[in-house]
């Protein structure tokens, strides 16, 4: 089985996000960038499938700037076999990403696409579903467990009110949730070896996909600061404030 893992370069989860002074966008100058954590889980899952003998080849793909190679190298260091960088400096919206990935799927014919359920920068949670629709493949989203049973893939999904297990025919798209696995540390020898693994560079035009954005960002603002609370002297004070100031009673 061939597994395709799309990954995205995003602002690091632990970085305090700042808005540019002109409010045009989030400030990315000198900000630590990392692989989207959900995608990291996807890479881990694909590599585990390979280690278990279920998958033969793991291909990592990203759409982004030249520096997004860092994230592909991480995927290669974790155990992916080769990587594809579709290079662009544009902002690529989920539908364009899905179209590009669909082209990659046509070219590579993977049996399985594993990807993060969403990216932590725009939190769209759309690309996996769009890709499944474009390919006409079944989808198992928000996966917390993935097992191959015969020619089907059993995906346990985290849904409101519990867990649901779906059986998917292959090829299929699986999107990962947080509890699926804990990604490994990339070992030094593997980080070194990753430098020598093949990394193809492409551009969106190579796939004949138009990536022009359809949305225009008007303004980016920080969330309003939470005001400090106060201590009330008595229950009566509290009730009075809830009634007259908060208007909730």
């Amino acid at each position: 089985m061939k597994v395709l893992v799309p990954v995205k370069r995003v602002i690091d989860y632990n970085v305090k996000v700042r808005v540019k002074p002109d409010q045009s966008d989030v400030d990315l100058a000198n900000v630590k960038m990392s692989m989207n954590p959900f995608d990291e889980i996807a890479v881990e899952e694909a590599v585990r499938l390979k280690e278990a003998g279920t998958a033969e080849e793991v291909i990592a793909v990203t759409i982004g700037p030249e520096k997004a190679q860092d994230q592909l190298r991480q995927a290669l260091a974790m155990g992916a076999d080769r990587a594809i960088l579709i290079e662009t400096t544009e902002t690529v919206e989920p539908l364009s990403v899905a179209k590009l990935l669909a082209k990659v799927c046509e070219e590579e014919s993977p049996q399985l696409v594993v990807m993060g359920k969403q990216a932590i920068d725009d939190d769209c949670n759309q690309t996996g579903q769009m890709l499944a629709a474009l390919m006409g493949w079944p989808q198992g989203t928000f996966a917390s467990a993935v097992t191959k049973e015969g020619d089907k893939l059993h995906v346990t999904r985290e849904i409101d009110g519990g867990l649901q297990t779906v059986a998917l025919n292959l090829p299929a798209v699986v999107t990962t949730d947080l509890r699926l696995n804990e990604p490994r540390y990339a070992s030094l020898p593997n980080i070194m070896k990753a430098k020598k693994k093949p990394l193809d560079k492409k551009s969106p035009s190579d796939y004949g996909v138009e990536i022009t954005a359809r949305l225009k960002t008007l303004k980016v603002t920080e969330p309003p600061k939470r005001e400090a609370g106060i201590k009330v002297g008595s229950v009566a004070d509290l009730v009075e404030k809830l009634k007259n100031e908060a208007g909730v009673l």
Partner: protein
Amino acid sequence: MALDQQHIDALAAITGPKGVIEDNDRAPYLTEWRGRWTGTAPIILAPASVEEVSKIAAYCHEHGVGITPQGGNTGLVGGQVPDGQVLITMKRLRGVRDVSPENNTMTVEAGLTLAEAQQEAEKADRLFPLSIGSEGTCQIGGILSTNAGGVNVIRYGNMRDLVLGIEAVLPDGTVWNGLNRLRKNNTGYDLKHLFIGGEGTLGLVTAAVLKLYPRPAQSVTVFTALPSARAAVDLLSLMQGETGGMAASFELLSASTLDLTLKQFPDLQRPVETEAPFYTLMEFTTGSGTDLGEKIEAALAKAMEKDLVLDGTIAQNETQAAELWQIRHNVSEAMKKDPAYCVKCDISVPVQDIPAFLEETGKAVEKAAPGARVIAFGHMGDGNIHYDILGSEDGERDAFKARSNEMERMVHDVAVAHHGSISAEHGIGILKRDELAERKDPAEIQMMRAIKQALDPKNIMNPGKLL
């Protein structure tokens, strides 16, 4: 020594009822966090201003009443534990008087916690680099009086290197304004250095001018498995050479340290599969520009070629970096969770002597206490090893505890033979007071006593500590 009620009343009147800690609130100030000492104090005062501190000192001086100053009560050698003295906590003196990103300084009061000071610096887009395990609790006055070190000393120095000026209340109540903000000021004796590491024996530090640094834009965290302690020494040289001195931390963990920590904290993922006698946790930082990650990878490739590094990992994101640091930060807690008693030593030797020190001490421990577990870790880049000895798993806790003095001296003997120190960063306090007098050059002890006599002739400031 019981204190007359009239003195207690007079002291309480200086701070008012808000500044007197009473009843059940007293216990946290009198108990040392590891439970080694319990203090006694006739009254615990929390003055709200420098003026109140001055009045308290003047009163105590006049009536010959002893004072023990206390910061966050996180000390490890008992310096903050009162033995019948008036306890003064600085927790209400927590103002930020001035932050200057241009001059790269900030002036803060003694009761501010280290974490709060770091945050104040961050607000001004600057770094206050001192970082220690207790940073959420320890206070500026305390870490100044104990000259604290921590994980960034290799790059930025210890507290002594990070203070430009101080304000202190002298034993007779005089307020000394020594809040120098200048990096160059050659005008006689640099008296602040007597108070830094002075353990509260010369006066009460109320505020300090701290040095700030640019915030590094890039940081790379690396965990490695090494074939020997010698390899760690060579790796430090190699990495510093290859990166032009970008190491902000260089921490060593013995195999026993990593194993114990992972055993006590099963949620932590083992960072490397390879089993090795030693591991290092390194952090490198720099500004924007050249890719630091590439530089570190190239340096590590060289280290692997030279067989200095067997295996390792480079944190791929800040989450992994934090998880690697979590291992290091949980070492002390892991030992606390172990039922056996732990003898804690805090030695330093010249960096190149670390392998010999570890080997010789290891043999001595094995001979003296078979089955005892050596937990050696710490700030290798500074030559500072926390050499802790956990009693054997099936041994008697109290029996091993009774031998702690003997064990400490055994470790100290080896350190001193290597031109080392018996207290690298924890200080002297009660724990090492007698040993200090034995081990230091008599001329130095003589000078220290002369200074103490000159500034505190009535011996009211933290008596029984340090000297």
